[in-house]
Structure formats: C-alpha cells, structure tokens
C-alpha cells in the first residue's frame, strides 16, 4: 500500500510534466492540424534556460530571494522565453508553408526539432548538466508513512494550478470557445469575428510557455538534464496527447496524468526496465480500441 501510494504520487508528478507538455501538442494540433515536433525541444530549451538562470543567479537566489523566489523566477523567465521562441518558430518555419500543405509543415517541424536539439548541444555541450543543488528545495518528510519531498508538493500544486487555469480559459471562457471553434471550422469562426491570427499567436505562445515551465520543473526534479531530453519527454507527452484524444484539452491533461501514473506503477510492480514498453503498450491498446483517445469524441454534425 505504501509503495502504491508513493508511486501514485511520483506518477502524478511526472504525469503533470507530461500533461503540461501535452497541452502544447494538443492545442497546436487542434487549431493547425500540425504535429509540432519541435515542441519537445522547446521544452528542453526551457529546461536549459532555467538551468542557466539558476547557475548565474545561484548566489543571488540563496542570499536574497530564497528557493521559492528562484524557482518562480526561473519558471517565469523560461515560460516567457520559450513562449517567444514558439511564436518565432511559427513565423519563420511554419507560416510561410501552411498554404503548401500539411506534410511540408510537419517536415519543417522535424527540421526545427533537430535544429533546436543541436543548438542546445552547441551552447550547453553534449554532456549532462546538473541543476545546482543549492537552488533546489531538498526538504523531505513523511505523511502517514509515505515519503514525499517538498519539491514534489510544490511541483504538483504549481502544475495543477496551471492546468486548472488553462482548463478554465479553454473550456469556460468565450475566448476559449473561440479557440475550439477555430479548430473546428476556420471560415465560420471568421464569420463570428474571430481573428485566426490572434488564436494562432495565443496557442504558439502559451503551449511552449507551459512546455518551458515543465522544463524547469523536470530540471529541478531530476536535477540532471541532457540535450536529448526533448525527444524523450516529447514522445511521452505526445503519447499522452493521443491517449487523451488529440486536440482535446482536458484529454491532454488526463492523458498526461494517466501516463505518468501507469509508468510509475508499471515500473514499481512490473519492471523498471520495461516501463516504456508498458507505456507504449497502453498507447497501442488505446489506438486499437478507442482510436479517438479517451476524451476525443466526435459528435456527428447533421447536414
């Protein structure tokens, strides 16, 4: 039981990373019908951005703002930086070729992914980098026999707040309805007065911003980061997106959290070595029995 609860908690923690990253895939796919392969690398870039900020600001963090301040600052700056990167990528790598078709844009996204991965390697080197210990909260404690770390709690709370805010914007506001409407039918959305440019700007800023934030969280949680991490997390988060139903925002959140929990339970009860096999087995099963994903239902439109 103790192991189960601990693994649930660990699963929710990494699941919230997946969920935050998955939102970017899902939003972009929903509106643009484009799988933004560069998204995982934007996440990695966010992680490195946070790393550099905390290394530079190490002394300042420990002497002035404190761990919480340093963490928030690193996430905020990574979010803004990666959000801007997302917009720039859309402008230069996708926008000029939308009219040519969907496949060229996907290829371009792959190109950007490789480009970003190499940029990270050139700037920060091919070896692992480690977030400085002094800027990461290390407090651990026990609740009812379960070991938890303060960092874990903070990450969970922050992630859930971010997920809740995003859920609210997309599902409960008229602007969110406009995003969903643009994903369904751009022409009719335009007839409502919805400017698709605004929507595109929003999704390409917000998706990567959330990914960048997750990057800092992952860096703090595991401390070690590498230039290939974008692929690894990107693939998992993309799997989560499919699991929940691509284009569906609550689906991406649910998919991410479930995937994290499966992965941790799988590694606890089956085998750590096979945890990825376990994850992709679930993906395959979902694709076979529910190809639209868990929440990706499509209401038939009557004509």
């Amino acid at each position: 039981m103790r192991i189960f609860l601990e693994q649930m908690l660990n699963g929710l923690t990494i699941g919230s990373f997946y969920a935050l990253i998955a939102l970017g895939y899902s939003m972009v796919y929903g509106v643009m019908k484009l799988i933004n392969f560069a998204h995982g690398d934007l996440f990695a870039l966010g992680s490195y951005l946070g790393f550099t900020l905390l290394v530079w600001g190490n002394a300042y963090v420990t002497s002035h703002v404190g761990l919480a301040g340093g963490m928030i600052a690193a996430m905020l700056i990574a979010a803004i930086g990666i959000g801007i990167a997302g917009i720039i990528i859309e402008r230069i790598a996708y926008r000029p070729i939308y009219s040519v078709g969907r496949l060229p844009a996907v290829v371009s996204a792959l190109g950007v992914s490789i480009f970003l991965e190499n940029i990270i390697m050139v700037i920060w080197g091919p070896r692992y980098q480690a977030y400085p210990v002094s800027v990461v909260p290390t407090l651990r404690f026990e609740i009812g026999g379960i070991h938890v770390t303060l960092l874990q709690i903070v990450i969970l709370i922050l992630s859930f707040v971010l997920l809740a805010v995003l859920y609210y914007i997309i599902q409960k506001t008229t602007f969110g309805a406009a995003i969903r409407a643009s994903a369904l039918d751009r022409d009719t959305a335009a007839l409502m007065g919805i400017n698709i440019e605004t929507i595109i700007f929003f999704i390409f800023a917000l998706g990567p911003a959330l990914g960048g934030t997750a990057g800092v969280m992952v860096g703090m949680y595991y401390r070690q980061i590498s230039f290939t991490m974008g692929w690894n997390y990107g693939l998992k988060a993309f799997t989560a997106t499919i699991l929940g139903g691509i284009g569906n925002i609550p689906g991406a959140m649910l998919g991410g959290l479930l995937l994290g929990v499966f992965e941790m339970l799988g590694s606890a009860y089956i085998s750590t070595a096979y945890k990825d096999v376990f994850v992709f087995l679930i993906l395959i099963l979902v694709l076979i029995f529910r190809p639209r994903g868990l929440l990706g239902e499509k209401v038939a439109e009557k004509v």
Partner: protein
Amino acid sequence: MTTLLKVEDLKIYYGSIEALKGISLTVDEGEIVTVLGANGAGKSTLLRAISGLLPIRSGKIKLNDQELNNVKAFKIVMEGISHVPEGRKVFGTLTVEENLNLGAYTRRKDIKSVEESKERVFNLFPILKSRRNQLAGTLSGGEQQMLAMGRGLMSTPRILLLDEPSLGLAPLLVRQIFQIIREINDQGISILLVEQNARKALSIAHRGYVLETGNISISGLASDLKSNQKVQEAYLGGAAFKKKNRV
C-alpha cells in the same frame, strides 16, 4: 429608402473558373431581398464574397457607401453584416450557449449586452433556451438551423445573410423558419436571403434576383417575379417540387 448593401459588377473566381461574372445588386434598409438560383448558380459564392471569405477579382461591395473589398472576413461582422452559412455550420462540439456567445464574440467583454442579445434570441427560438447546455452537434437539423440563425443575430447585425435556411427541413419547420425571418425583418434588420424554395422566398421578400451560372438573369419586385413566366417555369413550376437532395 436608403441603400444599405450594394454589390457592383462583382467578379469572383475559383482558380480559373469564373463563378460570378459581374453581378450587381442592392439591399435597402429594412428590405428582404432574395436571390434565387439552381445548384451551382453562385449563390453561396455571392454571400461568401460579401463576408470577405473569398477574394474579389473585380467590382465593389459597399455597406452604406463604405467599401468592404479589402476588409478582412473577421472584421466584416463588426461592420454590421452577419452571415448564416449554408448547412448551418454550427460548432458541433460546443454547447448551444457557447455557439450563441461566439455570435457576439466581438463584444464578449460587454457581458450585459451579450445576455440581452441572448434573451432576444431565446424569445425568437425558445427551444434554444431549453437546449442551452446541449452540444450543438446533437441538435436536430431544424434546431441547428435555429441555432445558426440565433448565433447570427447575436452580433446585432444591420443585415443578415441567410444561405438556404430551409435546406433539408420538413414543410412545417420551413414555414416556421420563414415566419421567423419575417419577424427578424420586422425588428428592422435587412435580409439577403438565398433560397431554392422560390415560392416561400418570394412570399416574404420585397424584391428578388435570379442568378444563373454566375449572372443575374432576372430581377424585380417579388410580386413581379412570382408572375414572371420564366421564373414560374424554372423555379415555381415542376422545379419547385423537385426537392433538393443533399445528404
């Protein structure tokens, strides 16, 4: 009467295909004007061009003498033109209420006035009120048409462009929809009504135009069109009973 909408010598192309070959028409303040025509005549093309969804090759579209040629589609609704597209095009995975809210998207910050518009729409289409939390895609065809029209009214337009509102509806519902179009017009909203149900359309319209493969062939008062021999033969005679078959 002052002219509200004016289309002058409009030419629209799809690639190299000329869909509208230089047509002119006007809609006056407070008028119901109908555009009749067979499948593929260019009726929807005309409405889509007015809404800014299609590039204009030549000619002019004006609202109150303000040229709209280069106004982007998403800005047209703010000028007071609301387009209810062919086939309803409700947002199926959004609720009825979300669809209505999007109709007033451009003034979404003004919650009070959005709620007022919604109440007016609910008065016109009471069924929408009881279905407000239902997904639009699960509504019946008739309800979807009502939602599409209600959504179009949410922007408080000066002119409503209706593209075949009676398409695929049972006769009773057709009668109801046309009754409501008249009520909307009584509230001072001008209407440009594209229809294949010529008999019904001419019964509520003030004036009409007949569109034939991209050209206007006949135009005049609705009463004159009803008695026009060519219109009778092509649109009110046997042809009127040939229900349009679309799935």
